[in-house]
């Protein structure tokens, strides 16, 4: 007969090896200390904290978080209210960032050649 985990029968530990110590070992086996309810609850609290909760709510939460991050990233790049603007070539041959607020700026990505 095997136990719940498929372990086979335990060889006769109460046999010849124990001999005259057998009554002492038997007494010890009969008096195994039991964990109290407080310890059990602490162990179960650890289990709840350390193991993964069921995935049915985790995936939507993760997707929402990813969407928020992506949205924030895009807003960071484009600005909350993108304005008409872009790069303009300066007279000295360098590019500069302009916006529609500049009176004579070129249009968005409309790189006008001057001078």
């Amino acid at each position: 007969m095997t136990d719940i985990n498929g372990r086979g029968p335990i060889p006769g530990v109460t046999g010849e090896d124990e001999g005259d110590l057998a009554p002492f070992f038997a007494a010890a086996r009969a008096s195994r200390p039991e964990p109290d309810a407080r310890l059990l609850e602490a162990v179960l609290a650890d289990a709840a904290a350390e193991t993964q909760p069921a995935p049915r709510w985790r995936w939507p939460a993760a997707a929402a978080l990813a969407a928020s991050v992506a949205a924030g990233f895009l807003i960071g790049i484009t600005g909350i209210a993108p304005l008409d603007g872009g790069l303009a070539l300066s007279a000295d041959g360098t590019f500069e960032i302009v916006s529609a607020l500049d009176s004579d700026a070129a249009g968005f990505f409309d790189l006008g050649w001057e001078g």
Partner: protein
Amino acid sequence: MACGRGAEISGEGEADDALLARAAAGDGAAARILALRHLPRVLAVAERMLGERAEAEDIAQEAMLRLWRRAEDWQPDGAQLSTWLYRVAANLAIDRLRRRRPGAPLAVLEALPDPGPGAETALARRDRAAALDAALLALPERQRLAIVLRHIEELPQEEVASVMELSVEAVESLLSRGRRSLRAMLLPQRAALGLEGG
């Protein structure tokens, strides 16, 4: 209040590996079954190694915590869960014993039966388990662990060897020396403990 091992809970007949997989997915009922199944034994080994309840509880909780942390990556083909837990608890207990070493001799002497006059009267009030526990504390830690695992927890010798990461022959040697020492300490007390032939 003891937590009660015999509670009827669905899934009690399930093997450890399957329960641990469920626990890893956040199944609290599976974690509870595993805790009820293994916590008493882990606690017993720790307490018999240390001779002190509060420290043993710390170690039992820590061993179970390490199990939960490992749950998601647990390999069913590896060591039995019980073997792994015993190993973790035993190593934690031995670490604790080594850290407290400067005070250990006093603790052991306090736990040992009084060998002086009147000792028999004092011993008569103790039960056999208490006498064994006291004698165990006088053994070297590896002999103590081997005796506890083999003769009290009733693990097969091969599993004791696996827990202790020793050969079966080395375990047998530890057991033989441990039993010899226990006999020397306990057999003179047989009459005082209500056993014939003392």
